[in-house]
């Protein structure tokens, strides 16, 4: 059965390593979310992005700024 798509927060990064650092950061802090390929609607590139619930935005922004993790963009997509 196909999973129903819902609106999610998608954070993109300048490098794959940054996206993976984000995943590790969230694991350490117990913040929900996972790595996904950057959605095609956002970019023609083939990097990784971090996908989380929309409600987690402020928590994620705080965590990123605390460790100086630079994001490329924040998007809202049906995933």
């Amino acid at each position, binding site marked *: 059965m196909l999973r129903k798509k819902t609106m999610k927060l998608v954070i993109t990064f300048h490098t794959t390593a940054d996206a993976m650092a984000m995943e590790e950061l969230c694991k350490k802090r117990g913040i929900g979310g996972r790595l996904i390929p950057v959605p095609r609607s956002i970019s023609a590139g*083939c990097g990784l992005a971090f996908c989380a619930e929309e409600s987690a935005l402020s928590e994620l922004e705080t965590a990123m700024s605390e460790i100086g993790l630079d994001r490329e963009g924040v998007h809202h997509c049906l995933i």
Partner: protein
Amino acid sequence: MNLSDSKLKLLIAGIGCGLAAACLAYFGNPANMAFCIACFVRDMAGALGLHSAAPVQYARPEIIGLVLGSFVISAVTGEFRSNGGSSPMIRFILGMVIMIGSLIFLGCPLRMVIRMSAGDINAWIALIGFACGVATGCFALKKGFSLGRAYETGTGSGIVLPALMAGVLILLTCTTLLKFSEAGPGSKHAPILISLAGGLVVGVLAQKSRMCFAGGIRDAILMRNFDLLTIIAGLFGVMLIFNIATGRFVLGMNTPGIIAHSDTLWNILGMYAVGFAAVLAGGCPLRQLILAGQGSSDSAVTVLGLFTGAALCHNFGLASSGTAVNAETGEVVAGAVTANGKIACVICIAVCFIIAFTNKRNSKRGAAV
């Protein structure tokens, strides 16, 4: 048109690429080479005089079409982004490694899949090496490997490689300056217009679908995401049907005439180097051409590395030979990996490890801030 919002569309994109490859094989490209990026870049390097191996010299319009197809579709859809500056010289080295590994195995990841669809057991064995190489690259990514971010550049920088490819097309069609093989794989080719059309079609489909052989396995390992592998499955399915229907499917390991060898260890190690380097460089040879077409100067530099690697392979005897039948005696002569090729392959793998574990995010030199 978004080709990647469903697996069905990705499968159709893969089928489209498979049909293009099958047409090219039908119209004259070498047996089960059909659309090999490494082989065709090597042929193009020969046509430009970068090496002097007479049987492999022909400016393949497929390569030109791939870059121009990606360039045109990305320009039309507003996705052309001129960017660069992400450790270009390391990418150049990785391009060389990808080509050397490919010519030791005798094929890029695309040809590996095409050979698999023709029943070549060597290619199935090489897949193990390729997957292990990608897995090692994924391990490096998890350990923080990064070549640093790319920055926006002037539009002219991103247009250089498509312009150079257009220039080669003009040389091919309007002059006699380029070298042409009179015998061997380079002499076997589909008509120029069909080759160019095939390249353009695959270029457009690959740009829209983000088709990548290394990326497919990388995404499966890192994220349990099988989208990119769906495209490969479509291509494999079409080529399998084509090979069976045209009597080209021969299950075996030492099949003469298909430009392959049965040196198992080096088939594995060659493709291990390719898979490892492709993950570090951010894509397989096909993907590098597509990214270069849509404006990435970093990928364009990787493509230059592919050309240089091809020249090194044939100037220094690194490329393997394929199993063939001696025309006079009728005996099957097994293909082999050269001693120089074996040494080069080991060096390439060592270089990949050095690059993978010395280029870290947050390193002191600040390559990947």
